[in-house]
C-alpha cells in the first residue's frame, strides 16, 4: 500500500513537472522576439506563405493565448511536437530516431565513470597521503576544470592526426559496411573516444567523492568491527565499506543526468556522433526551434527517469531506506 501511494505520488509529480516544461516551451515561443509562427516554422526552415497560413490555423494563432496553450498541449499529448522544416520530418520521429545513439554514449560513459571513479577513489583512500592519492586528486581537479569539448578536440587531434589508430568521426564505418558481430565491434570502436571524453569529467568527480566517503567509511566503527572479526581486508573494503561509499556516488550520478546529457551534446558535436546532441547542434545552426524545444522536453523526461531510477537503486543499496518509511 505504501509502495502504491509512493508510486502514485511520484507519477503525479512527474506529470505535473512535464506539463510545466510544456508551458515553459509555450511561453518561450511567445516571448521570443518576432512572430510566433516564425518561431514554430523555424527561422531558416524556408516555410512558404501557404505553410505559414496553415500553421496559423493549426496552432490557432488568432485565438487567445489560453486557447493557443490548450491547442499546443493537445497536439503534444497526441504525439505532435511540430514539424521540422529543415529536416523535413515530424520532430517526434527525428528525436526518437536519435535517442538510441545518445543513450549508448551516455550509459557507456556513466558506467565507466562509476566503475573507474569508484576504483580510483577507493584505492587512493587506502593511503590518503600517498603518491597515488595525490595523483588522483590532481587528476580529478584537472578533469573538472578542462572544458569537455576541448578535451574532445585534444583526443581528436591525437587519435585523428598524430597517432591515427582510432576512428574519430561518426558511429560506424560508412565506407566499409560491416555485418553482425563485426558491426557491433565497429560501433564499439567508434564509441571509445566519445565515451572516454564524456567519462573523464565524471571520473574526476566520482573519484573525489568516492575517496572522501571511503576515508570516512574506513574510520567508522563497523569497519573496525569487521576487521576485529578477522574478515579478510578485501571483504571489509569490497563489501562493508564499499556499500556506504557507493550511496553518495549513486545519488550524485543519478541527479547529474542533465549534466551528462548536456556534456553529450558537446561531445557528439566534436565527434559527429549521430545522437540527440548532434541534433541540438544542427537545430541551433538552422534556428530549427520546434526540434530544439522537443529536445528540451525529452531531456527533462530523461532527467526525471534518471531520478526515478536513482531512487530505486538507492533503496536497493541502502536497506535503511524502504519505500514509504523515510
Amino acid at each position, binding site marked *: 500500500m505504501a509502495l502504491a501511494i509512493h508510486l502514485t505520488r511520484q507519477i503525479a509529480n512527474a506529470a505535473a513537472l512535464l506539463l510545466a516544461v510544456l508551458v515553459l516551451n509555450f511561453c518561450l515561443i511567445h516571448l521570443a522576439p518576432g512572430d510566433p509562427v516564425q518561431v514554430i516554422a523555424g527561422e531558416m526552415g524556408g516555410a512558404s506563405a501557404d505553410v505559414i497560413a496553415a500553421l496559423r490555423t493549426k496552432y490557432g494563432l488568432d485565438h487567445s493565448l489560453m486557447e493557443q496553450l490548450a491547442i499546443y498541449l493537445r497536439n503534444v499529448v497526441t504525439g505532435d511536437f511540430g514539424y521540422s522544416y529543415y529536416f523535413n520530418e515530424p520532430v517526434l520521429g527525428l528525436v526518437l530516431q536519435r535517442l538510441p545513439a545518445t543513450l549508448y554514449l551516455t550509459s557507456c560513459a556513466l558506467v565507466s565513470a562509476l566503475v573507474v571513479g569508484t576504483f580510483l577513489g577507493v584505492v587512493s583512500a587506502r593511503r590518503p597521503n600517498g603518491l597515488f592519492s595525490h595523483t588522483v586528486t590532481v587528476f580529478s581537479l584537472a578533469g573538472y576544470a578542462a572544458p569537455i569539448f576541448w578535451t574532445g578536440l585534444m583526443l581528436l*587531434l591525437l587519435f585523428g592526426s598524430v597517432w591515427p589508430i582510432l576512428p574519430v568521426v561518426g558511429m560506424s564505418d560508412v565506407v566499409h559496411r560491416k555485418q553482425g558481430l563485426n558491426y557491433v565491434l565497429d560501433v564499439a570502436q567508434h564509441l571509445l573516444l566519445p565515451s572516454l571524453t564524456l567519462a573523464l569529467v565524471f571520473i574526476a568527480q566520482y573519484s573525489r567523492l568516492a575517496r572522501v566517503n571511503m576515508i570516512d567509511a574506513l574510520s567508522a566503527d563497523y569497519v573496525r568491527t569487521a576487521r576485529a572479526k578477522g574478515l579478510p581486508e578485501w571483504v571489509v573494503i569490497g563489501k562493508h565499506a564499499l556499500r556506504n561509499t557507493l550511496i553518495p556516488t549513486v545519488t550524485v550520478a543519478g541527479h547529474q543526468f542533465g549534466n551528462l546529457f548536456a556534456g553529450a551534446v558537446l561531445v557528439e558535436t566534436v565527434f559527429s556522433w549521430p545522437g540527440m546532441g548532434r541534433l541540438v547542434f544542427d537545430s541551433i545552426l538552422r534556428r530549427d526551434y520546434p526540434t530544439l524545444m522537443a529536445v528540451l522536453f525529452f531531456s527533462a523526461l530523461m532527467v526525471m527517469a534518471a531520478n526515478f531510477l536513482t531512487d530505486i537503486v538507492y533503496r536497493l543499496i541502502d536497506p535503511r531506506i524502504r519505500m514509504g518509511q523515510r
Partner: protein
Amino acid sequence: MTTLEAPTLTIVSAIDMPARRATSPAGIAMRQFLKSPSGVVGLCLLALIIVGTLVGPHLYRVDPLDLVGAPFMPPDSDAWLGTDYLGRDVLAGLIYGGRATLAVGAVAALITIAIGLLIGSLSGFFGGVVDVVLVKITEFFQILPPLLFAMVLVTLFGSKLSTITVAIGAVSWTSAARLTRAEFMRLRDLDFVKASRAAGASDRHLMLRVLLPNALPAVIVSATLAIGVAILFEGGLSFLGLGDPNVMSWGLMLGQNRNYILDAWWAVIFPGMAIFLAVLAISLVGDGLNDAINPRLRRRS
C-alpha cells in the same frame, strides 16, 4: 571587579595572541586560507590571469579582431602564438578574450547567487506554503539540463554577450537555492536567532542582518565555483556557435577555429588551455575557501 579582570586579559593576550593578530571571522578564515597550498596556488594563478588581461593590452598592442597576417600562421616571432583561420592574432585574442570570458563568468555567477539567495532564503526562512511553492519551482528548474536550457534561451533571444550572461545566470541557480535554504533552516532554530526574534526583530532584520551573514560562508564557496561553471558554459555555448561574434572571448576563439584544428592546432589549444587554467585556478581557490570557512568539512579534504 574590574581591577581583577584587567590583568588576566593582558596575560592571556600576551601568551596566546601575538601582537595584532586578526581575530575576526574573516581574519581567521584568511589565515586558514593562506595555510592551504592549493588555495594559494589557485589565487596566484588567478591573479596572474586577471593581471594579464588587464595589463596585457597595454604591452601587446594588437587588435584581436584585426587581420594581422595570413591565416593559419604558426607561432613565431611575428605572431607569438600564431594566427587563426582569418589571420587574427591568437595572443591578442587570448588577452582581450579573457576580459569578456572572466566578466561573463563573474556576472553570471553573481546572477546565479542572487537568484539562489533570494529563493533559498525566502523558502528556508518562511517555510510552510512559501517553502512548498519555491521548492517546487526549484525542482522544476532542476529537471532542465542547465547547459541545454541556456542553449535554447540564447538561440531564441539572440547571442549578445549580455543575453548569454543572463541566460547562464538564470539556469544554474538551483544548487545555490537549495544550499541557502538548508542553511536558513538550520540557523532559523538556533538560540541566537530566537533571541533576536524575542527581542522584537522584524523578519527583514532577521533575514538580512541575522541569518544572511551566518549563511554566507557556505554560499561564498558555491559562488566561487559558480564562476568556474559559468566560464565553462560560456565556452560550451560559443563552441556550438552561440557566442557573441562581435566580442572576442576564449569560447568564441575555440568555437570559430575548431573546424580548422588540423590546419592550426594553436588557435584551438591555447584558448582551451586558458579556459582550463582559469577554471582550475577558481576551483583551487574554492577548495581553499571551503577548507578555511567551513571548518566542519576541513578534516575531510
